[in-house]
């Protein structure tokens, strides 16, 4: 239904750590693999071995260069999938009711058998989180792996999204962002988790943890402090110091 539920019981979503994501694309491919074999139509690929290969992906990794006022340019790897927005414009624009937000957990889904493939929901999404499958003619998007997270056929530890399970760097976290005491909510609070394009008014559930400050070693380490003070200023005095230091070791002469 294109009405958004007024509230959802939980707000399941992802927290993505931009400080840690190494840009390996592991989550991209595990998502592709899982969602090709599971929920809905397979994620197809056109011209897969040709000049212009292009396929449906529900999660993609961008990378950005950030040039601070002073200092070296930085690089940030930036995973992006559906943010399961609270005020999801993709849902309200849908003419058929194929797009909906689940009342239990806030997951935004497409019911493929209702979808006419009009593409409007993708227009309405500011984040590029929806892709029309070219073979199937239906809209595909991140399902938050709804067929994993509650799946009784999976061991309990594995009831997490495929991308989260696979991320080697541990840069993706899954949980209930509606519960202030959940691990993900705590992480967001501690690390200043942020919304993408807050001005769009979508109220994303997924949060991004900003990269920590970079290139600070010179500010932090006082190179003139005793830490690095020479043990001796005399030329050739080093071996003398060495001798004294050896004597000072446990079991030494002293």
């Amino acid at each position, binding site marked *: 239904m294109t009405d958004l539920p007024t509230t959802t019981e939980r707000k399941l979503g992802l927290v993505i750590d931009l400080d840690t994501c190494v840009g390996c694309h592991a989550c991209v491919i595990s998502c592709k693999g899982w969602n090709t074999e599971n929920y809905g*139509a397979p994620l197809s690929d056109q011209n897969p071995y040709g000049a212009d*290969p292009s396929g449906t992906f529900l999660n993609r990794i961008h990378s950005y260069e950030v040039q601070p006022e002073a200092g070296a340019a930085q690089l940030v790897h930036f995973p992006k999938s559906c943010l399961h927005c609270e005020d999801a414009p993709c849902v309200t624009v849908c003419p058929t009711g194929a797009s909906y937000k689940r009342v239990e957990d806030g997951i935004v889904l497409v019911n493929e058998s209702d979808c006419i493939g009009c593409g409007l929901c993708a227009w309405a999404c500011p984040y590029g989180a929806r892709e029309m499958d070219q073979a199937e003619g239906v809209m595909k998007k991140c399902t938050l792996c709804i067929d994993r997270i*509650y799946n009784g056929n999976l061991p309990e530890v594995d009831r997490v999204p495929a991308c989260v399970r696979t991320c080697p760097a541990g840069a993706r976290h899954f949980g209930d962002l509606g519960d202030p005491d959940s691990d993900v909510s705590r992480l967001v609070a501690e690390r200043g988790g942020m919304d993408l394009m807050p001005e769009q008014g979508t109220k994303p559930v997924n949060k991004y943890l900003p990269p920590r400050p970079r290139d600070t070693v010179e500010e932090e380490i006082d190179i003139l402090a005793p830490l690095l003070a020479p043990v001796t200023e005399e030329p050739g005095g080093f071996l003398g110091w060495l001798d004294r230091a050896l004597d000072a070791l446990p079991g030494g002469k002293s």
Partner: protein
Amino acid sequence: MAHTQPRLDLSPPISDEVRKTTCYMCACRCGINVHMKGGKVAYIEGNRDHPVNRGVLCAKGSAGIMQHNSPARLRAPLKRVGPRGSGQFEEISWDEALEIAAGWLEPLRKNAPEKLAFFTGRDQSQSFTSFWAQNFGTPNYAAHGGFCSVNMAAAGIYTMGGAFWEFGQPDWDHTKLFMLFGVAEDHDSNPIKMGIGKIKARGARVIGVNPIRTGYNAVADDWVGITPGTDGLFVLALVHVLLKAGKIDLDYLARYTNAPCLLIENPGGADHGLLLRDDAGKLLVKDRTSGDLVPFDTPGVRPDLTGTHVQNGQTSHTVMYKTVNRYLSEEYSPEAVADRCGIPASRIRAIAGEIARVAFDEAFEINQPWTDFRGERHEKMVGRPVSFHAMRGISAHANGFQTCRALHLLQIILGTVEVPGGFRFKPPYPKPVEAHPTPHRDVVPGKPLNGPHLGFVRGPDDLALEPDGSPSRIDKAFTWENPMSAHGLMHMVISNAHAGDPYKIDTLFMYMANMSWNSTMNTRGVIDMLTDTDETGEYVIPRIIYSDSYSSEMVAYADLILPDTTYLERHDCISLLDRPICEADAAADAIRWPVVEPDRPGHAGVRGFQTVLVQLANKLKLPGFTDEDGNPKYADYADYMVRHERRPGIGPLAGFRGEDGTDQGRGAPNPDQLDRYIENGSFFVAHVPEEGLYYKPWNKAYQDWAVGMGLYDSPQPFLFSLYVEPLRRFQLAAEGHGDRQPPDHLRERIKAQLDPLPIWYETDQQGNEGYTVTALTQRPMAMYHSWGSQNAWLRQIHGHNPLYVPTKLMRENGLKDGDWARVTSPHGEITVPVMEMAALNENTVWTWNAIGKRKGAWALEKDAPEVTRGFLLNHLIHELLPPRGDGLRWANSDPVTGQAAWFDLKVRIEKAAPPDGLSESHPATEPQVSPVGTGPEELEWKVGK
């Protein structure tokens, strides 16, 4: 209206069955759960129980399904029918293929085994392939290590009995400062990512030293955008500052390293600079308490770092004395190196300060008593939570061996190797040089070689030279040009064979290496060598046999193709005898097994290459494969994995040995072993006892455990070598001592560059005048060399590769994104698309490795972006340096190990029009005929409908 929504089945079945095996989309060898539906591979995920990946999987691993079903898979043995390189083949039966191969090999074995050169790529069965080659009797065997990272391996083994590479790892759980040198991805792909994730979650600091700030270096808290090739200088400056401030671990140096060992002082003598030993050959140290000269392992000894010893009127000083004198010199001060490294002196000092702070102010203890090899009991383990890791950014330079050594020196003076929070070895390492074989080269026609081909030379006597001084091996490994070439020199094989230098060969037999394309320097030149004919019209390299699983570029250059299976269709053995999957706290090995049977409908089919080698060995009746009655010992590779014994009780697999499968490491062959592995997830782990977890080279508990596991036959405690004596032996030869003498043109180089204490030198820049920009490649995390491009999912991520150019060079050359540039080296020229990058050393350009493809390869269509826009930097790199005018051509490699110096490449760039008005990278290679056609027009992959 009430909110309504569809009812979903939230617990759909996942699969019919899970088969656990080992990934092989790269050499990291993670455990995978292969979900099967209807007998087909449906989904691949990481195995949570596996010691390597603990459930995670990289992009390549998850895309395994696309590789396993790739349209580029070979389908039958192939016999060349067109000219070499054309790609024209005829499919033949396996009987015929084996007949042809045996027909070529049999006479060679009888008359001149060295005329077979057998070289393998990055496979994981080197203990098996070398066993095969040894039994064949040829000295010409090696794997890919020579062009890959032998600098890293050799420097590590000679210095501390183990190396970074995949043989050790930081103590991810305790380290508080992690410094990474020259790594984009490495073999330990998932463990490094998991480790970085772990330490960043703890808020510990990561420092990335790399001219390029992507991947790991992008998440590093501090980035050191060093000038390529100068890491040695930077590291020695850190050593300088730390020494000067006394921030070194004297206790560690005294106890566990050769710092207190005494250097013979005998200028002009044949033993000058060797280490003082007793009659039994044991290293001697001065005991600080008694003042006596005693063997280093004497119980109760307190080795004196400043001790001296007078012998024949000459005073011997310690290695420590020499070390301190060298590195305290102002030539290693931050100020002296800053400009060359491109790092401000203040930054070098700050980093040294941070290292010192963490190593000493954040030292911690683990309450775990242990006993050292001298019998001394320690109540605690002291942690120095600073760790380092390095890879090809350091080793793929012609000063890489010494640079790796410098880095190990830094680790060792901090006392942070094999301590909590530091760098830890993975079994079977540490293993001192003395526990490794020396290279063997003695050929007797019809007989096996007299020992393993590869090893660690201790001095000139171990070189692989003929009595006349000429190289014994086709790759000229273990010669004066590169005496410590412990992994052989695969990158020299084709050019030497083509030149007939040191001799001509008959058959080049290669496995799993794309040597006509991305794994070779001077790609065009190598293609010409492979296709060159002599006066009689015969190929200069008469026969080439090659095994690949896919339609690679190299396939076109072979006369006979032995098609291998995919990694899900065969038995493999990732063995402790080879490159195992161990972690620092456990020995582990693994297998692969046919989770699906090979199936190439309508074609003769494919066979696991190792099984094919067994079948060939049986046809040739090779000794190690034939019993006393002349019958084959092994039916196939699976049989070999279970029943072969290297030494009594020790076989390829360490787990589930003995009649009842309860023995570990040592034990009789167990016929059910493979089933037991499969039940266990296709791997086996044996944990190091708590007491043995750190200080492994000196820890009695560890050493005893290692002996029990069959890693060694007796405890092998040893001292780390700040000073590497074998290097000194080569210097002595260069100074004129001994019977084996280097050629004169190499004497000065050996004296200077085989220094037993780490040094830094500028790599050879003669002939590079005017080429001021360093050109590098990096491995993309989502691609494995050339394999990835056949993968429909992965090639969408990296379908072509721009040249990344720093902002300054973009401006200087009037370039903008998408423009084309001509990139010239003294050797060649390419024209390629460019993109700007700011987070890059300002005199460095780079691209992703091995994306460019030849038309017709990999089942790609002829206008694929890999072909039209993708390119290889390899066209600009030559295996020889530009001529210097001395009439000699010097190798573009490290003078110690012969490691190919990929990253010494210097270029010039300028704006260019797209080549030929087309948007196609230049040079374009003529197309090859695809033996498998091209892939389908669309993929809608779903196994369970």
